[in-house]
């Protein structure tokens, strides 16, 4: 078959610059073949190489005593959680595929991240996701929203992983470019950590999983371009089709296989498929790899080497086996009825060599393509729009005259309203480990003996019959992108702080973080500035909370003809709860309990009093502007330490963080968010007595989003002690009311505001349902 000649046009079509092409010529010492050009194109895409962001990512804290596998080393980072047990976790985006084909795009996003986790030798035990869409009034947005959610549900439910929750925001900037970030966490023993390295010269290389087809051709390269009007038509072939049933079989077979000790290295074929898995495994081990494409199972006749190498057909794995143990591997694949093939060998050449039809079609130094992609220091320039943002003042804007109606509108606002329409479609309890269901600040899961992969005979002998201690993990994923848009540095800090606050509210101490950086086109200096500043914010905050970043994903070029998305650096934090008695949820529990606000009622140093970038400003005034609330990391950390101390002392009956919608929304959620069963919410009233500080407006007091605040409830007789203790620790604290009564009522000076809980619950619980009908 004749291959196209390499012309400047063909190079440009592969998104390679003339300089990058020059570098390819230098590496090879000759003109690349068509297949090689394709390989460079995907391996040097942003998705695979982080060429635009690598210098920035160096700012993240990535080391600590608990980091067993660090960021960038492998498919996912691994942290120690004590007693010889470790967790592997990561978040990854599937934004562009989901924009083009929401169901399959989102489904394969879940498949990809789950594979990254079991590739490390870990058993995947839970998933989260972070989603962004345009406004639900647009029917096209509803189609994307509905397709993405059912795609995630389809894949995760069938695979059998509990999707514990996440976050969903709706904003115009995501219209046509939704964000789908999927997170997965797995559990393993330290000894079970598996490397994606092609060790052992002469070892055979196996391919396992379904046959390779033309689907998903060069998806990684597609993910690294702007979305255009034509994308939907032209790129549909770049979206993969997922088969969660196959993934479940591949996962179980791989975990069973790892327990035999016959595996020298393993890597999934994710982005850039066979290409990425072969050159990365060789590069990591400092070896070479040689494969024969005629042996690769193929779904379609007449596939070219270019197509086979760049296909992103799903659920495939590359397994390097210790020579002489091939039969054990084949036996397990056959037990699970999985297609497999022996496709190649580990060599000592340092080169990735691919043969097809008796010819060598690829011969590239593995290390250079995997590790030596170009790196760019892009130009950064503060965006112009920030001048206007910073100039915004409340002066010309009237205070609220209808606080009662305003709270209702906020609770019904899709970004704040209950997301049960979403999470009820996810199986969130499979594996019998979910302790706190979606709907509280953080999800909580228990890790028990059967969360761990099966052990090899050798390891089992070493471990003996010592029972596995049950452990409790709390998880939260957060990012208020409006804040990040209005102030990337502070917004970045707040994303981490809010996730950490959610963990603290559930009784957990952070173990580590993974981030998903979703931004527009980095060639635009204003966008690059957003990336740079928000990464700086994330890094500072992760350092403050001692949460090393163990990896993540960068998704750039998130823009559509209307412009870039709001910068969205999503952060997922994982924390450990020391004792089951410390598990805390957000809803009020008993009549007569005291309600205490930890933190300032209003930040008096903030000229906007916490209303900049607030939900109130967006909902009541249609304005997305103003400098967002400030984040003092020291103060925030003191709050968390204090709250955890109170929880550990047994005084705290509920804890809920104040975020979008401020104090009023937080307290309302404490009253209405407990769900006992289908159609059976537990509504419990509250009576608040608030004082308007001098010079503070009512809207700022009720709906301002001053940071570092948590609403807790404690037994009446503990209230004085708890307030004193918090103040002693340096956290402002005040009793603001009492749990009980039928309505939610708030007295502010002379004014008395009252809401029916049934009405608030209905608005909050059913608003997305109604919009989706």
């Amino acid at each position: 078959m004749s291959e196209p000649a390499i012309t400047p046009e063909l190079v440009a079509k592969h998104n390679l610059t003339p300089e990058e092409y020059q570098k390819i010529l230098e590496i090879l010492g000759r003109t690349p073949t068509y297949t090689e050009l394709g390989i460079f194109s995907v391996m040097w895409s942003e998705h695979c190489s982080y060429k635009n962001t690598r210098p920035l990512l160096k700012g993240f804290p990535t080391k600590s005593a608990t980091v067993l596998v660090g960021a960038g080393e492998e498919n996912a980072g691994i942290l120690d959680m004590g007693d010889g047990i470790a967790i592997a976790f990561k978040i990854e985006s599937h934004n562009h595929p989901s924009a083009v084909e929401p169901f399959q795009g989102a489904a394969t996003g879940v498949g990809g991240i789950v594979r990254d986790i079991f590739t490390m030798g870990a058993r995947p035990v839970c998933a989260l996701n972070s989603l962004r869409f345009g406004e639900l009034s647009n029917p096209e947005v509803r189609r994307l929203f509905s397709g993405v959610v059912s795609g995630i549900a389809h894949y995760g439910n069938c695979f059998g992983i509990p999707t514990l929750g996440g976050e969903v925001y709706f904003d115009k900037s995501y219209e046509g470019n939704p964000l789908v970030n999927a997170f997965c966490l797995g559990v393993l023993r330290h000894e079970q950590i598996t490397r994606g390295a092609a060790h052992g010269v002469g070892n055979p290389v196996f391919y396992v999983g379904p046959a390779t087809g033309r689907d998903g051709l060069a998806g990684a390269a597609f993910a690294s371009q702007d979305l255009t009007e034509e994308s939907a038509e032209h790129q549909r072939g770049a979206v993969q089709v997922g088969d969660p049933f196959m993934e479940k079989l591949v996962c179980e077979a791989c975990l069973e296989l790892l327990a035999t000790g016959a595996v020298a290295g393993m890597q999934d074929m994710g982005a850039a498929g066979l290409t990425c898995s072969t050159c990365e495994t060789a590069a990591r081990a400092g070896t070479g790899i040689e494969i024969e494409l005629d042996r690769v199972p193929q779904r379609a006749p007449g596939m070219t080497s270019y197509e086979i190498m760049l296909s992103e057909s799903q659920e495939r794995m590359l397994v390097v086996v210790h020579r002489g143990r091939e039969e054990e591997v084949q036996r397990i694949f056959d037990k699970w009825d999985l297609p497999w093939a022996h496709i190649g060998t580990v060599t000592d050449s340092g080169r990735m060599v691919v043969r097809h039809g008796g010819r060598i079609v690829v011969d590239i130094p593995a290390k250079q393509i995997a590790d030596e992609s170009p790196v760019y220091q892009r130009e950064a320039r503060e965006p112009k729009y920030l001048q206007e943002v910073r100039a915004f003042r409340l002066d010309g804007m009237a205070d609220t005259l209808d606080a009662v109606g305003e709270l209702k509108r906020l609770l019904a606002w899709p970004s704040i309203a209950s997301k049960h329409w979403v999470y009820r479609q996810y199986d969130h309890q499979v594996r019998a480990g979910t302790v706190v269901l979606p709907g509280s600040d953080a999800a909580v899961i228990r890790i028990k003996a059967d969360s761990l992969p099966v052990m090899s005979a050798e390891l089992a002998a070493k471990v003996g019959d010592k029972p596995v201690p049950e452990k409790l993990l709390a998880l939260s994923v957060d990012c208020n992108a409006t804040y990040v848009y209005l102030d990337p540095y502070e917004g970045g800090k707040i994303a981490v702080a809010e996730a950490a606050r959610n963990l603290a509210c559930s009784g957990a101490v952070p173990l580590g973080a993974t981030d998903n950086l979703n931004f527009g086109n980095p060639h635009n200096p204003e966008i690059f500035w957003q990336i740079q500043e928000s990464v700086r914010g994330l890094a500072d905050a992760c350092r403050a909370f001692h949460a090393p970043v163990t990896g993540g994903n960068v998704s750039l070029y998130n823009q559509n003809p209307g412009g870039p998305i709001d910068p969205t650096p999503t952060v997922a934090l994982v924390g450990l709860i020391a004792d089951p008695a410390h598990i805390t949820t957000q809803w009020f529990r008993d009549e007569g309990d005291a309600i205490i606000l930890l933190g300032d009622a209003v930040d008096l140093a903030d000229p906007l009093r916490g209303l900049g970038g607030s939900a109130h400003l967006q909902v009541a005034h249609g304005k997305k502007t103003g400098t967002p609330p400030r984040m003092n990391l020291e103060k925030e950390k003191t709050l968390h330490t204090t709250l955890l101390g109170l929880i550990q002392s047994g005084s705290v009956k509920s804890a809920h963080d104040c975020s979008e919608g401020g104090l009023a929304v937080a307290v309302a959620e404490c009253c209405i968010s407990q769900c006992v069963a289908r159609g059976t919410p537990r509504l419990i009233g509250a009576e608040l007595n608030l004082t308007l500080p001098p010079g503070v407006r009512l809207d700022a007091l009720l709906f301002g989003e001053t940071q570092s605040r948590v609403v807790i409830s404690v037994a009446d007789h503990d209230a004085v002690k708890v307030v004193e203790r918090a103040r002693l620790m340096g956290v402002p604290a005040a009793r603001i009311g009492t749990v009980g009564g039928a309505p939610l009522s708030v007295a502010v000076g002379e004014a008395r505001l009252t809401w029916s809980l049934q009405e608030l619950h209905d608005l909050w619980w059913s608003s997305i349902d109604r919009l989706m009908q």
Partner: protein
Amino acid sequence: MNFAVLQFPASNCDQDAVHVLQHLGHDARLLWHKEPSLGTVDAVIVPGGFSYGDYLRTGAIARFSPVMQALRRFADNGGFVLGICNGFQILCEAHLLPGALVRNRSLQFCCETVYLKSATADSPFTNKIPADKWLRVPIAHGEGCYFADDETLAKLRARGQILWQYCDESGALTDAANPNGSLLNIAGVCNERRNVAGLMPHPERASEGILGSEDGRLIFESLIETLSHSTAAAVA
């Protein structure tokens, strides 16, 4: 007691069933679907999941697995079998239980906690459930809408084969309490001989305090109680 939990490709509640039975102090082991025999067991659990990806139709392929022939012999000999979620769907497909499970009325997968009313205490699966106790257990399925023709429904009623029905917190069998459109709010049934039962909800996810409900234990404890009185274990 000695339980076998069947394991089909993409069963995914198999470990959970083993876990809960062991937690209750009994022996439980997984049994791969290619096994032609059950060995010696006191009862069999057909667990939840997406056997064979639930492609074609839920449970439609699993019924042809070798282990299902053994299961049929076991049931014919009077052995006790409980199918949960996908297990219920498989037992219906295999005609070990009457009726069929079709797509939820909402056309969406639905995971939430429901209340279950036991229609009778006169079964090996419900004898420990107090008459005034509604079980709070989770469901998680896309095809859990119980369907049977009128004649079958009439027989089920007459013979007391309806074991569990979706109810509200007051025990009323309302339409609002019905999560999937099941006829007569049916969540679970047994066969005429009363040794094979299936239900869509997941009692194994509601059998420990830390998971928020222990009500599901009553179903396993009913079965265990029955087994402790039954004579020699059935063999297949």
